[in-house]
């Protein structure tokens, strides 16, 4: 089935919107512990900022002045809950596989992949607002960049939303590995290290050795953090959303293929 055909077959998108909203609201009741998490994120932000301020030369590097590095890091720390910690979807898919509930879930008149990704997306959006904004406020003393041009806000948001989608799909696939291995931790560690390191969550990718930088900036991981940050800081033009769009399409196809393989495995082995 072609990608477009598949999108069409998802049927009414309304139910996925409902799922996303539910995923968002579910998080509201844990607000107290999330506030604590935000303080922790802010503290790690402080550590990162001081590390990089001390390590970079006074003239900065690449197209980053020292203050730009601070802006890059504080922005990244605000979106870290959006792109890096897709804990729920991976555990939910894993638990469904282990408990055998996955058989019923796959039977539902709803796309299994879209169901999980939509729920996760809502919860990631929660992370972006209710964790990201407090972190931004806490880190504003170190320096938080505010673009003057509203179009920049818009493009950065688009890049971020694409990044969030890729992240949700990526964590979904990590959970899906439970069909083939008993321990999804290996897959999690690999993906999470790659998306931290190659995604530029804790430093601008230009820090990396040149060959690695070139790989990283065209990898899907760069769409999670590096690309949105570059757009937001007005270091790159909005065209940088394009790799994200391409990767979102590719990741969707891969995730759907994996889901089909999982379904076949379930049908052959009977769960």
């Amino acid at each position: 089935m072609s990608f477009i055909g598949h999108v069409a077959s998802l049927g009414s998108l309304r139910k996925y919107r409902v799922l996303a909203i539910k995923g968002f609201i579910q998080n509201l009741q844990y607000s107290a512990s999330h506030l604590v998490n935000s303080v922790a994120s802010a503290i790690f932000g402080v550590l990162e900022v001081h590390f990089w301020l001390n390590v970079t030369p006074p003239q900065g590097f690449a197209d980053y002045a020292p203050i730009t590095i601070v802006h890059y890091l504080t922005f990244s720390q605000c979106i870290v809950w959006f792109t890096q910690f897709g804990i729920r979807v991976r555990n939910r898919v894993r638990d469904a596989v282990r408990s055998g509930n996955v058989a019923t879930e796959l039977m539902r008149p709803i796309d299994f992949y879209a169901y999980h990704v939509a729920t996760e997306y809502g919860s990631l959006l929660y992370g972006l607002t209710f964790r990201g904004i407090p972190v931004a406020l806490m880190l504003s003393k170190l320096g938080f960049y505010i673009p003057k041009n509203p179009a920049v806000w818009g493009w950065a948001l688009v890049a971020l939303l694409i990044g969030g989608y890729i992240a949700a799909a990526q964590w979904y696939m990590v959970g899906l590995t439970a069909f083939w291995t008993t321990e999804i931790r290996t897959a999690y560690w690999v993906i999470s290290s790659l998306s931290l390191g190659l995604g530029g969550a804790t430093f601008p990718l230009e820090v990396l050795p040149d060959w690695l930088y070139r790989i990283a900036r065209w990898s899907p991981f760069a769409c999670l953090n590096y690309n949105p940050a570059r757009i937001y800081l007005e270091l790159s033009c909005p065209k940088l959303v394009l790799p994200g769009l391409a990767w979102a399409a590719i990741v969707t196809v891969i995730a759907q293929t994996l889901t089909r393989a999982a379904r076949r495995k379930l049908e052959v082995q009977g769960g």
Partner: protein
Amino acid sequence: MSQGGIKRIIGLIRLYGLLISGAVRAKMQYKFDFIASILLETVMGAYDYMVAVAALWRFHTIAGWNIYEVGLLYSVSKIGWGLYRAFLEEVDRFEGYIIRGDFDAILTRPYPSLFVLASRNFAMERLSFVIQGTAILVISLRNLLGLGVLDWSGVLHLGLAILWTTLITCAIGIATSAAAFIIVRVEELQVFTQNAPGTATLYPLEIYPTWLRNMLLYFIPLGVGNYIPVRYLLGKGGSWLNLVAPAVTAAISLAVAVRLWHLGEVRYHSTGS
């Protein structure tokens, strides 16, 4: 010490050995999980160091410390953390005991609860941190000994620094888990008292603002374990007192931690009624 006291301690060590060998035998029934996780964590756990390597590869020094010097800070801190987790894994996971109500059974034993808790597990899988820290320590020492920055007496002092750092890390772990007696869930608190300070002390403390540095030296004194002695050993300032401070800090922080634990134990609310 009286003969009875010595006998008692020997008895305790024997019992600890017996309990740990039981725990290890139990764990060996899941050998594959164990080996897989130790390998994985050894490699993946080095992420922070890789970032530092990438940064210092490009920019050479941070606050005047090169990658090998930072490596000493890093390895002392990581080995201390690994040993803490290996010996006191059940203390680190203590909130689970409170949530499940398993602490009741611990208190029915004729020994201090911390001893009973610690003797339930020796988490060999956490030795991944020790392996990784040791590898980085060896790389750093080869360079620093070769350049004559450090001599063999310095290596001995580094060994002691690892011991004091381990004890300070244990003290912080015990004090944090003691909070579970009152607030039950301490996973988030651990981020503040263990993970964040652990990350912060991987690098020289002079890169941080004063309030943060003071915090890591006087409140959660992880920095006293590695930064203070390593700084002196590398000739970056301080006096022989820098080598004594960690021992004193370890003693004080352990005493405070055990006191907090006892205070918590009195307030223990068992689950169910």
